[in-house]
């Protein structure tokens, strides 16, 4: 053999073999440590993606800081409410569903440039309990599902901007070995150790459609009764409760054990994305809420139409809202959305030159040429809007100058959400004050005002001060009701007509002032429903005050029937228009607000989920 087995050559070969073997072994050990059980090629791709991202962003921001300087000012003022953003995973190519990495970067930069800063879960919960003040532009960023592409794509940007975020982990998928979609535990640990991230629970294994019958039709793990194959039937209520409670408990326990952090917040799978529930158990969501509140401090639901986008302090509430960031939004869009939702201060004037956050609940709401157009669509009988960022207001006088052609014009105050508010409802010659709580509508007072006519530049208003509320017309109080529950909430506008697609309001000016700063407007002297004798007035008022004090809450029995259909524009019950008779004192005295409630009782049965959640305890 013509072979050279000299020491030198063998030595070289051995050295190379050892180095190569060591390099290969180290590479795999490093991969396991950093990426857990992720397949190698995926880990390599992620490592590349992550390091490229970090390098590029660092350079970009270093250059930017060099040329533009950095902004270190803290935003002035204190926050009235805090928005919470929801992302899932970030994608590179647009798919119409998920936010792209480019858009996310744009959004984060836009927020940073406008002075927004992120807060932690702890800070948020402290704020909600009413215990702390946060800067005006504070936001909480969350990601759902614990996908790899929710971390690797976003973290370089968050790092550079000094932001932090929360990731909601679904336990079972996160334990999938060799997943290329979900973060493995090694990666989650690394995520937590960066100091920028926190985690929460997104259920143990409830994030998938679950079978609700033998045929395999699926429903929602946390809202529907599931099929029990072993017993060949649907589960009982007790079984539902046990199953849901177990998942909630186990997810918290598993996450805390694996990662050694406190996990006290819960993000409802699917329930917040509006995925259709099968609907075989309307009480299901309520039970889930109860059980979740036993295990967690805070539960997240998605912000829906008619909800304020920000979260205002509410020490008792278990549920808080998150804004789902749309795939179509770029930085300017998100910033605009948030700026509109920011808490507004009293006194407030809106010339309606620009949209300050009038959110539609139903119908169409448009703003152009300095007016706000609230109009019914051909499919609706009315329209409703509210001003975002006003939930914390209380004791104010709210007036709107508007053109009003048909139907009813209604001003809402103390608006807690899209279906809970106090309403001054005006029509030709009549005004009513109602308390709306979900599906229930209670008449608090009514008056005939012959002079009150539709027209242009009509100035309508509602004044809330302490325990009394007045409806105003052209600067005069046309209806006052006292002895009401104190409350707080924002302002809104509604319109309604008997025919579809007809109702419309053109609002030209809005002004809201603190009731303490503005004297109570004088009573309209031609109010026919006023007591005939001046002398009796104080007594009458006193008596009615007593009768109307502490209005009884409407008792709603446990729902056993299918839930009410989704909120449609509240139809004006037929009984209303005929219930008022130009009254005598006797009728005034005998007008019992509770009795005069008519077919609103048809929907007395069920409260919707929002109502339960927001008004529990």
């Amino acid at each position, binding site marked *: *053999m*013509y*072979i*050279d087995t000299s020491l030198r050559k063998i030595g070289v070969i051995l050295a190379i073999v050892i180095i190569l073997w060591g390099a*290969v072994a180290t590479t795999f050990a490093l991969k396991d440590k950093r990426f857990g059980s992720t397949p190698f090629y995926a880990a390599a791709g992620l490592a590349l993606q992550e390091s490229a991202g970090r390098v590029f962003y660092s350079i970009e921001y270093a250059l930017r800081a060099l040329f533009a300087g950095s902004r270190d000012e803290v935003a002035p003022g204190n926050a009235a409410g805090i928005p919470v953003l929801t992302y899932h995973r970030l994608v590179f190519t647009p798919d119409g569903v998920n936010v792209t990495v480019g858009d996310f970067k744009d959004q984060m930069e836009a927020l940073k440039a406008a002075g927004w800063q992120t807060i932690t879960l702890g800070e948020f919960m402290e704020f909600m309990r009413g215990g702390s003040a946060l800067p005006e532009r504070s936001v909480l960023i969350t990601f759902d599902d614990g996908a790899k592409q929710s971390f690797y794509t976003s973290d370089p940007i968050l790092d550079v901007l000094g932001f932090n975020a929360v990731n909601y982990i679904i336990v079972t998928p996160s334990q999938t070995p060799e997943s290329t979609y979900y973060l493995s535990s090694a990666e989650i640990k690394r995520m937590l150790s960066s100091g920028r991230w926190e985690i929460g629970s997104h259920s143990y294994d409830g994030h998938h459609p679950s079978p609700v019958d033998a045929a395999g039709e699926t429903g929602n793990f946390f809202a529907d009764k599931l099929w029990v194959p072993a017993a060949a039937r649907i589960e009982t209520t007790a079984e539902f409760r046990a199953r849901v409670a177990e998942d909630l408990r186990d997810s918290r326990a598993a996450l805390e054990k694996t990662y050694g952090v406190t996990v006290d917040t819960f993000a409802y799978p699917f329930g917040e994305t509006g995925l259709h529930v099968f609907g075989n158990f309307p009480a299901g969501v309520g039970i889930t809420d109860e059980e979740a509140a036993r295990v967690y401090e805070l539960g997240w639901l998605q912000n829906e139409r008619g909800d304020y986008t920000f979260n205002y302090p509410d020490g008792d509430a278990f549920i808080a809202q998150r804004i789902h960031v749309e795939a179509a939004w770029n930085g300017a869009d998100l910033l605009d959305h948030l700026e509109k939702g920011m808490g507004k201060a009293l006194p407030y004037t809106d010339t309606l030159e620009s949209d300050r956050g009038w959110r539609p609940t139903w119908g169409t709401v448009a703003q152009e040429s300095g007016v706000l157009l609230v109009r019914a669509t051909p499919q609706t009988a009315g329209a409703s809007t509210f001003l975002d960022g006003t939930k914390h207001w209380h004791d104010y006088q709210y007036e709107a100058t508007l053109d009003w052609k048909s139907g009813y014009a209604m001003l809402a105050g103390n608006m807690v959400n899209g279906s809970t508010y106090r309403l001054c409802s005006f029509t030709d010659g009549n005004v009513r004050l109602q308390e709306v709580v979900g599906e229930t509508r209670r008449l608090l007072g009514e008056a005939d005002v012959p002079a009150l006519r539709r027209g242009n530049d009509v100035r309508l208003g509602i004044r809330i001060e302490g325990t009394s509320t007045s409806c105003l017309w052209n600067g005069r109080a046309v209806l006052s009701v006292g002895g009401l529950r104190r409350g707080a909430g924002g302002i809104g506008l509604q319109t309604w007509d008997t025919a579809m697609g007809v109702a419309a309001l053109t609002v030209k000016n809005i002004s809201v002032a603190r009731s303490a700063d503005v004297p109570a407007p004088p009573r309209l002297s031609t109010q026919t429903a006023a007591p005939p004798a001046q002398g009796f007035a104080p007594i009458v008022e006193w008596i009615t005050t007593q009768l109307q004090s502490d209005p009884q809450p409407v008792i709603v029995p446990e729902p056993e029937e299918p839930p009410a259909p989704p909120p449609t524009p509240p139809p004006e019950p037929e009984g209303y228009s005929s219930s008022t008779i130009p009254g005598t004192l006797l009728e005034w005295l005998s007008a019992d607000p509770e009795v005069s409630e008519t077919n609103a009782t048809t929907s007395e049965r069920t409260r919707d989920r929002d109502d339960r959640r927001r008004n529990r305890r």
Partner: protein
Amino acid sequence: MNTSRTQTSQGFFAHLRMSLRDASERIMGDAGGWFFFFGIIYIILIFKVVSYESLSNHVFFGFYSLLITTYILSRFLLAYLRKPIRVDLRYEPTITFVVPAKDEEDNIAETIRRFGAVEYPREKIEVIAINDGSTDGTLVEMQKATEAIRHSVRRIEVVDFKENRGKRQGMAEGVKRARHDVVIFVDSDSFIEPSAVRHLVKYFADPSVGAVSGHTDVWNRDTNLLTQMQAIRYYIAFKVYKAAESVFGTVTCCPGCCSAYRRSYVMAFVDEWLHQKFLGVECTYGDDRSLTNFMIRKYRAVYSAEAKAHTVVPDVFGKYVRQQQRWKKSWIRETFIASGFMWKKNPLAALSFYSYVFLAFTSPVVFFRAMVWYPTVHESWPIVYLIGLFLMLFLHGLFYRIQVGARAWFLAIVSFWFHTVILMWQLPWAIVSLRDTRWGTR
């Protein structure tokens, strides 16, 4: 470069480019180049480990992947471990140059001229040139050239075949007429270096050695892309693959462009070789491979990297493809024959040989599956295969770059790809057309 200090912008950039090239030379030339080389091997190893799971599902393809990686890496390893031997000035056997020629009037003069310029004692050299029925002026050139070197060698013989009898006949004639100990076959379009002879004959000091292959580079390297690619191919084929075979003394082909044989050993089987029949047909092509095959039955064939020669390669694509086709046919035939006795040789040598046979025949199958079947069925690219292929090709290209310098090394990769992907199909075709004994157009 110490040019004048004219600092025109053009001069500056040219200087910069030169500096960069020098720097890259330095980086690639020594440690840097090897770092990249082993870096590629590192990536290949990682890749093999990672793709292990997906390959372990298919035993056949997993085995193929493992085998081809091991085989190729082992070639580099063995080439590294090859021990060259020194020229022993005391050992000077007599040599005979045998150069058969047909229609080679352009090159034959130079070929023969070089015989006169070798660094070897004059009286130990003889030259036998065979004109194999040429239709051009080859004979005249031959006579002129041999006349010119008459005083540099001991004896000259010009043999003229009036009709074309085939290269084997020419070579056999040369061997029979030779009177010296070592016969050096040189192609009529090959040009040997003066030092080649000493480096060829030094191995014959070992009586077990029957044949020595020289190192042949491409003469017309810069003609076009095709010749450049062939230059790279020749280089790697000799420096890595023949060198690896040489460790065991089982070089399977000492090419006719420059190889030396011990005359006494050859004479034992020259007639058998001359009248070799395969599948009932007389063999005409693959004379050098066949001769080597006869030799290694009993003796050893080695490779001498220091014995340099150059040869002219086809610069026209059609000619090139036909040549390759011919070579593949001779490879099939001779490999089939060698399979019958290679198992008796050194176990590693036998293993290498049979592995290579297996790989050569399964490569088209694997290629077809990866590039045609798989994308059709799975509608996705066979990433594993493509990356593995690319890494191997890159490894070869990098080797070339380190050894030879910045000379279109990327082309090395392209050329390997070309041979792997395009020309591998010649093998199945060669099997089919084995009995066709035509040379094609030379």
